[in-house]
């Protein structure tokens, strides 16, 4: 009985949001505001359950020596972060924000360099001739490699705006935009797939879980 009630609650909220397709209405607005309010509360609960309680409270309880007392620093920074809510001392939150921004920037540089730029450039160094099982197989594999290399280089050149796209640079840029248009078309196709999948999921819930029609 309880599960039937909660299924109807889920169906009510689903239909309230879908009603927006006809036009904006009180049911949609009500559901939208409930979503925003509850999401905010969700983050506060998550902060305690998965961050403060296990890392700070648990850390002070179970760690010993320097490992325990050094937790005062992140605890202090966290409190500083919260001073953002108190206007006269909100400038103190900049210290905590500076720490998080500095860490994010440092992680960004190292991650992008080591984990993306170097491996991806390395993977673009492909042989222009690939021996295959037959002439056409070899031709196909070789042309593919050439296209990957030329496509990557041409795309990068397209985004070089420090010089006007004329002459050789203009030709390479035009090749680049061709590859970019193909990529954007493919991305659009996949985006349609994604959005439709989300709708299929909700319709399946309404038809199968709520109405038991299929």
């Amino acid at each position, binding site marked *: 009985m309880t599960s039937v009630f909660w299924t109807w609650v889920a169906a009510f909220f689903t239909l309230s949001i879908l009603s927006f*397709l*006809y036009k904006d209405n009180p049911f949609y607005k009500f559901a939208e505001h409930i979503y925003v309010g509850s*999401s905010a509360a*969700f*983050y506060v609960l*998550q902060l305690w*359950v*998965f*961050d403060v*309680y*296990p*890392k700070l409270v*648990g*850390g002070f309880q*179970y760690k010993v020596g320097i490992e325990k007392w050094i937790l005062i620093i992140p605890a202090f920074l966290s409190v500083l972060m919260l001073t953002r809510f108190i206007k006269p001392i909100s400038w103190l939150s900049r210290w905590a924000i500076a720490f998080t921004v500095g*860490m*994010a920037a440092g*992680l960004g540089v190292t*991650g*992008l360099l*080591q*984990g*993306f730029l170097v*491996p*991806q450039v*390395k*993977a673009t160094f492909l042989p222009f001739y690939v021996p295959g099982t037959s002439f056409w197989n070899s031709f196909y594999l070789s042309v593919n490699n050439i296209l*990957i290399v030329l496509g990557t280089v041409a795309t990068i050149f397209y985004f070089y705006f420090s010089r006007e796209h004329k002459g050789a640079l203009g030709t390479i840029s035009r090749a680049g935009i061709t590859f970019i248009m193909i*990529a954007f078309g*493919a*991305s659009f196709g*996949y*985006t*349609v*797939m*994604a959005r*439709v*999948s*989300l*709708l*299929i*999921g*909700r*319709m*399946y819930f309404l*038809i*199968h879980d709520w109405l038991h*029609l*299929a």
Partner: protein
Amino acid sequence: MREFFEKLGKIDRRIIYLIVAIGVITPILFKARLPIKPLPEVRQAFDYIESLPESSAVLISIDYDASSMPELQPMLYALLRHVFRKNLRVIMLGHWPLGVPLGQIALEDVAKEMGKKYGVDYCFLGYRPGIAAVMLNLGKEIRSVFASDYKYTPLDSLPMMRNIHNYNDIALLIGLEAGSVGDFWVQFAQARFNQKIILGSTAVITPDIYPYLQAGQIVGLIGGLRGAADYETLVNTPGPASIGMYSQTVVHILVVALIILGNVGYFVLRRRK
């Protein structure tokens, strides 16, 4: 004639919405199914998991929330069934706070279905903020990030976790991605610690993951609802993804037809100007 083509280019959006809704609902109602031939990159992911020895540890990262649930939740169910069937041990965590409970729900469902025991065959660690910092510290010692599981039980009390300390003890990482966390897994876990990674992603970000596959930074890619349906087929457990494929095909044809229709009106009117 001109009015006809003008109207052709300005059909009321609510009629389009109705056509799309009928296109989605009808195949579900009539339980229509289509044969599914798995894509090579999905088969690659399946084959890699098949090759893992029994009792290997698999880390699954839940990096999505309810907004991507219809694509990634069926993928997760199929992956969990495969992994448990192979008697691999599952460690689950997440980086999207609003979505981590979805992973836990699926884990408990499939574990119960397949008779797996918590702490012996699987465990759920929960969520920690920080993303890249979490990934780096997991590479040194898991306990430095997760001293306990979601029930606040110390990890050393869980039999399966006694010999698992970092990525060296984890055979495979499976990231289920709806945003940029998959990029971080590759940049940190794979690049620094050589962790083997399979990425399952929403269709929106799947095109961005192909460069990683070609570069060998990931060992498999499961993209979108189609990827989930492919995986369900490979594991022989048809589910919501396989059911949704007919609707997907119908709406795709519909969208292409709408694009053609819109362009017919546009070309005729442009000609007449």
